[in-house]
């Protein structure tokens, strides 16, 4: 199907553009060698690095090399990972392939983001649907209030406050670190606050529009039960804006994880990004951005492709 192909090609192009932008920005602004080794590097180390990493070559040559290696899955190496001080030994032996570092941390972030989604999506949809099905009731007010609160709160602040309450004051949960339920629950809840708010908001307003449409009355007149009308008839039609927004929120989750991972010392890609920023590890930053951007783009693609299930008109065309 040409549509599918077009979308995929578009996405690949977008990814390429992003990676290229990051590449050029990194090499052109400031001193790339400094950005790769950090401000504490000696001039000798910097020189060695320039030779090893090919930083003295013309820019377009560097770019071509980079893209070439990209296609084989090699995003370069990091000279700083694992070292807080630049060692004085041979740099060439040190570099760890960045892609491995990033991929190693990915599962932790997936676990965190996944947990947040598992909580946020069903809860948010349920809240929105309930509010729309009982307008102006107490449930409606509560849902509206909670969703407004969810989108207005500062995520990492919420995390800190939860730590204060549950870890410091009550001592029920650990203050951070990687682990199972006990360790993931606070960060997951922190991450989930905003998506719950947004999902509930959008679900509620789309469902309210949908429930006012004529076919709902037809279904009622037929004798369909109310819960079926709401969840089976109306929700399917309201799905597209909701799913689009869930896709947006999932992408936002990946980036929101950056802050939450820092607060809770959760060893995922987010924490990796922060650490590499503070240690000036340019290759690692580039790779992390590339991977996260790729993930976000994939999520958007999936959302796009789900439309055909919800709105057959798009694929089958209008009328005969």
């Amino acid at each position, binding site marked *: 199907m040409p549509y599918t192909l077009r979308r995929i090609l578009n996405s690949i192009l*977008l990814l390429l*553009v*992003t990676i290229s932008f*990051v590449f050029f*920005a*990194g090499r052109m*602004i*400031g001193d790339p060698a400094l*950005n790769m080794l950090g401000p504490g590097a000696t001039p000798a180390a910097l020189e060695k690095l320039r030779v090893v990493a090919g930083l003295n070559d013309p820019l377009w040559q560097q770019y071509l090399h980079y893209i070439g290696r990209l296609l084989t899955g090699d995003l370069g190496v990091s000279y700083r990972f694992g070292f807080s001080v630049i060692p004085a030994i041979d740099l060439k032996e040190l570099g760890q392939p960045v892609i491995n570092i990033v991929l190693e941390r990915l599962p932790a972030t997936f676990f965190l983001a996944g947990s947040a989604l598992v909580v946020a999506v069903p809860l948010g949809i349920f809240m929105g649907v309930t509010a729309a099905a009982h307008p102006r009731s107490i449930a409606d007010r509560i849902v509206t209030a909670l969703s*407004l*609160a969810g*989108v*207005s*709160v*500062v*995520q*990492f*602040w*919420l995390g*800190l*406050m939860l*730590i*204060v309450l549950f870890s*410091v004051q009550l001592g029920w949960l650990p203050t951070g670190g990687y682990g199972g339920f006990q360790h993931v629950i606070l960060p997951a809840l922190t991450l989930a606050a905003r998506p719950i708010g947004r999902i509930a908001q959008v679900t509620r307003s789309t469902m309210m529009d949908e429930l006012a449409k004529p076919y709902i009355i037809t279904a009622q007149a037929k004798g369909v039960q109310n819960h079926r009308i709401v969840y089976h008839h109306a929700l399917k039609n309201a799905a597209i804006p909701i799913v689009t927004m869930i896709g947006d929120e999932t*992408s*936002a989750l*990946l*980036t*929101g994880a*950056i*802050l939450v991972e*820092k607060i809770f010392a959760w060893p995922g890609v987010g924490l990796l*990004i*922060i650490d590499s*920023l*503070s240690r000036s590890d340019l290759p690692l*930053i580039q790779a992390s*951005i590339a991977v*996260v*951007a790729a993930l*976000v*783009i994939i999520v*958007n693609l999936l959302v796009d492709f789900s439309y055909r299930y919800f709105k057959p008109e798009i694929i089958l065309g209008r009328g005969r």
Partner: protein
Amino acid sequence: MVDLSKPLSPTDVDESRQVQLGWNDYMRAILQDYITFFALSFVLLLIVFTLGADFLAPHEPTGLNLRDRMLPPGSIGRGGDFYLLGTDELGRDLFTRLIYGARVSVSVGVLGAVLSAIVGVTAGLMAGYHGGLLEDIVMRLVDGMLSLPSLLVALFVLFILGGGFGNLVLVFLVLHWMVFARMARGLALDARNSAYVQAAVSQGCKSGRIILRHILPNVMAPILVLFTLEIAVLILSEASLSFLGFGVQPPDASWGLMISGGREHIRSAWWLVAFPGLAIFFTALSLNLLANWARAITDPVQRWRWLAKRTKFRKSK
């Protein structure tokens, strides 16, 4: 039978509801709408404190006062000073710091939103009105940039450029103009086919003039709503970026920086983290509430319903 050769007298005209509502009715309606009233008051208060910080703040925002360090909210210091929200590790009054921090946080948000709005609306209106290649290019750019993870890109750019107020506003501009552009383009598409635009075209107006003086005033309402929401978004973004050290840099203080600074003392002085966060929360909340209210007001049906519920409906004879 009605003789149509004579003009209709008033008694023949339908007795439609003719209600005139003035400022008083709007004011009364706002007073009765507790939620909007709260949001409006908070925002006004914020503006007042931001502008008049020098006069209204109870203490000095900088300077050491180690005798009174780490006091919980509501305490009285050694010298008899009252610290409404407590003090930080250097003995500075938190409330005062919050007020001065508001200046930074709010102005970053507002400035960023204003610039994004100007660029975005211009691009969007022109793209939507002229269509063709311009629209294609702009919308592709918009869609592409919108699908990027904005926090990440912001972090990267700020890492390369360094932090600071100016760079922050620049990053906001670059990463948020698309939201306005997308909305403006949609509005321009609708406006393009409307009667008033076609009338202007037929009178020989040039497109630039049409966009600026005809279309723009008519589409201001939803743009203003979006603008309000974006200020909230930017304030939250600034908090995150400053917290990570890439936003506003010390010695400037912003709410986000205050949270990051207070983090080390979280076990002993929770208020250093709690109150800046609450400030951001209430600001964002009020802005969201105001945006919702503004959205309702601009829709004639909802406006009528909102007013009718809260005022005495005056009917003309």
